[in-house]
């Protein structure tokens, strides 16, 4: 089995107003990577490249040992994705979604789905449009986790959630991490990243400015945000100089 969850080499994606450039990044299986950066830094684009939702202009992308985009359906069958700007069908129930997903994923675990329904306090007969934002995120997580993905990619999973739901979501991710699943997630909340991630990558202006073990960035009681701001500031000064 390929030991790397992801392997990126000189990945580039250019848009009209910004470019994600020269991204080289590895993540070993079973580890958790937190992506930190400002809005528009390129975190979401990077996550979308990993899932094949956006095709890179250049570079190599491998996920779970398979090349993207050549092996896209195979990769997506083993990768779970939840994003803050992702929604389920409002007019349908959670049960309808569970039935739909079950037909597409042979590894759907009915018992795990039932357990998650209970843990998240969700009712399968409830329509999505009747759910709060927190319940919708939990429903998305349920649909993703019940098919036992090898790698979970989360784009701002706790954005806009109240503190209680946020803790529920973080607890679930902690359980996954302890179970040895690979996780990649982006977040604006430094404390979430410090809490969950084994390693952190700072993205700034479309570039990977730092990547190391989380412990290195929070050494001596420093906070992750502080380290990020210092690195970004040092980089900006370097550019000016």
């Amino acid at each position, binding site marked *: 089995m390929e030991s790397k969850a992801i392997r990126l080499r000189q990945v580039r994606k250019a848009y009209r107003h910004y470019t994600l450039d020269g991204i080289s990044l590895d993540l070993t299986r079973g580890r958790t990577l937190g992506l930190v950066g400002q809005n528009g830094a390129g975190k979401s684009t990077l996550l979308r490249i990993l899932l094949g939702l956006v*095709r890179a202009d250049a570079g190599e992308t491998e996920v779970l040992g398979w090349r993207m985009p050549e092996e896209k359906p195979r990769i997506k069958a083993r990768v779970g994705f939840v994003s803050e700007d992702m929604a389920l069908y409002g007019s349908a129930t959670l049960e309808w979604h569970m039935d739909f997903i079950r037909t597409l994923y042979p590894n759907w675990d009915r018992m795990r789905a039932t357990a998650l329904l209970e843990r998240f306090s969700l009712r399968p007969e409830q329509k999505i449009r009747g759910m709060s934002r927190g319940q919708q995120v939990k429903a*998305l997580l349920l649909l993703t986790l019940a098919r036992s993905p090898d790698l979970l990619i989360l784009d701002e999973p706790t954005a806009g959630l109240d503190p209680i739901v946020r803790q529920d979501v973080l607890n679930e991710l902690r359980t996954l991490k302890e179970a040895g699943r690979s996780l990649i997630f982006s977040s604006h909340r430094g404390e979430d990243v410090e809490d969950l991630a084994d390693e952190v990558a700072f993205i700034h202006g479309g570039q990977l400015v730092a990547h190391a073990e989380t412990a290195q960035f929070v050494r001596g009681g420093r906070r992750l945000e502080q380290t990020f701001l210092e690195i970004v500031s040092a980089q900006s000064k370097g550019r000016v100089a």
Partner: protein
Amino acid sequence: MNAEVVYRLVKKDCSLMRGPLCVYTLVASVAAFLPALGPGWKGMGVTLALNVLIGLSFHVTLGTVLGEREKKTLPFVMSLPLRPQEVALAKLVSSYAMFFLPAAAAAVSLVFLSPVDIFTAMAHDGRSIGAHVLGWCAYFALVLGAWTVFFSTVLASAIVTESLGWTVAVITTLLFVFGNGLLQLAPRLALFVRYIRDLQRGGPSLPLTLGVELLAIALVIAATLWLQSRKTSFV
């Protein structure tokens, strides 16, 4: 191409739209029976059937195709283990599947309510029942085919551009610029008048027009799938 996956997506779309589709089919069917209420109701039936076609085209395109982006369900669909071409094909198949039942009912009503009384003409004609049925089917296919060309073009623009603005621009151009232009100018052209007379007689213009309609639909579908395969961003 995974046919099973395409089938699942088509079933998903049809399942989500089943309520409005039932209403469109019912209204289109009711249109055919309105003349039974009196002579003045025939025009109402034609208007109703045409409105079903227009409303249906908008609803299917804006709801099923562009609605995925607007309601943020597109990232959910695109994160499933599918190829973009499978998603595009599924959108085309589901949109046509949703379009055809109510549109067929509306087309039957339009042929039935047509100012050219096909049934009376048939009664005075000495041809066999089979020939009459075939002729009736040809006119039905002509109406349905013409609207399907319009629908296919709008659908293609929605799938390819994923933009409400561009789709509305295409609808406006087809309906108001091209359609109105044709209605205003064409009757003044001798060639067009001859063509319409030949259509009414069931002359060679009828199969030729049906062939052109089929070719146009096939070309639009092929162009949609080709353009979709060249995309680099899917959300």
